[in-house]
């Protein structure tokens, strides 16, 4: 029983805690890095917009490059899967209504799942 007590010194405890934390974090990542982005697109007055195009872009040096496009369904929701970035830019466009400003979302790891609390709001006239 006493044999294990030598493990109770600050070196083992410190590095052990770090190792455990790193392992837990990696475990968390493993379950949450499917690269899913879910959200809704709404019009200027807040009504869901079907058939809007949502563009996910990545920033390369100074310009943003579109990487994926999806279209919203009846309820105005959309799902992007399989992105591999830790910073994504999202923009929704529906030519008849307008466009949402391109917004940056930063993530804690590559391919992190993202559920948008706030819907992308189209602004009339913008493109």
């Amino acid at each position, binding site marked *: 029983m006493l044999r294990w007590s030598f493990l109770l010194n600050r070196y083992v405890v*410190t590095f052990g805690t770090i190792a455990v934390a790193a392992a837990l974090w990696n475990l968390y990542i493993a379950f949450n890095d499917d690269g899913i982005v879910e959200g809704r697109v709404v019009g200027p007055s807040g009504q869901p917009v079907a058939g809007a195009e949502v563009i996910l872009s990545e920033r390369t*040096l100074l310009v943003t490059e579109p990487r994926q496009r999806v279209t919203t369904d009846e309820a105005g929701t959309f799902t992007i899967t399989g992105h591999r970035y*830790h*910073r994504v830019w999202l923009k929704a466009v529906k030519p008849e209504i307008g466009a949402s400003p391109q917004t940056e979302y*930063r*993530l*804690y*790891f590559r391919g992190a799942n993202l559920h948008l609390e706030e819907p992308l709001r189209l602004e009339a006239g913008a493109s």
Partner: protein
Amino acid sequence: MTRYPKWAIHLGLAIICTLMLIPFYWVLKTSLTGENIFSYPPAILPENPHLFYYVDVWYSIPFFRYLVNSVVVSIIVVVGNVVLNAMAGYALTRDFTGKGSVIMLFLSCMMIPFQVTIIPAYLITKELGLLNSHLGMALPLCSTIVCIFVFKASFDAIPKSLIDAARIDGVPDWMIIFRIMVPLSQSAIATNIILAFIWSWNNFLWPLIIIRDNDMQTLPLGLARFLTVVEDTTGALYAFCIMVLVPGLMIFLLAQKQFIAGLTSGAAKG
């Protein structure tokens, strides 16, 4: 020892610590906000702090790979310092002809700046076949003069009677060293660990010269990634500085108790 009131000492130390901490605070603040530090007037408190610059650092360079390299090199350096310096330090506690010259030689070696030795040192490392290797990065730092003297002083402080007694009992030299002297010099070992770690961890120019392979780079070499001229990398640069600093601080905090004691015997028992 002193008759000053405690609050005065606390006040004095608080002022000094504030002065020492201001640059740290600014590095930390900028790493959390990424604001242009050349804007005026400077914002004293961070606005909208976030950790995403640390994420950027992690992905901008192969951080984990560099970290592993840095750790490997530092471990080699630390082990080298502890073992080799202990040996040299022990040798210097004994009397022998040429001792004075050896000490003078060590002292003058301290004064040769590394920058003037780059080319020949590179050629030598090439001859040894150690280019692009962890050992090649570590070797020049594997024995350091200050640390040799720390060991020497620590050994000097061990009562002669103890060693003589062991000798009379017929205990061989190497056993005296490892069974008596080393256990009594924990503080010198701690000192060696901390200093060797700091020096190796922050070493920049030498790895830069001898490493060509991207897979072999150490953390300080990642700095270049954050000093390019076309991108705004201020926040990431400072986040990077913090990330490189943390291990050094951690080692210091862990070994602090022995460290302070180690330098004690190093400095005063001459």
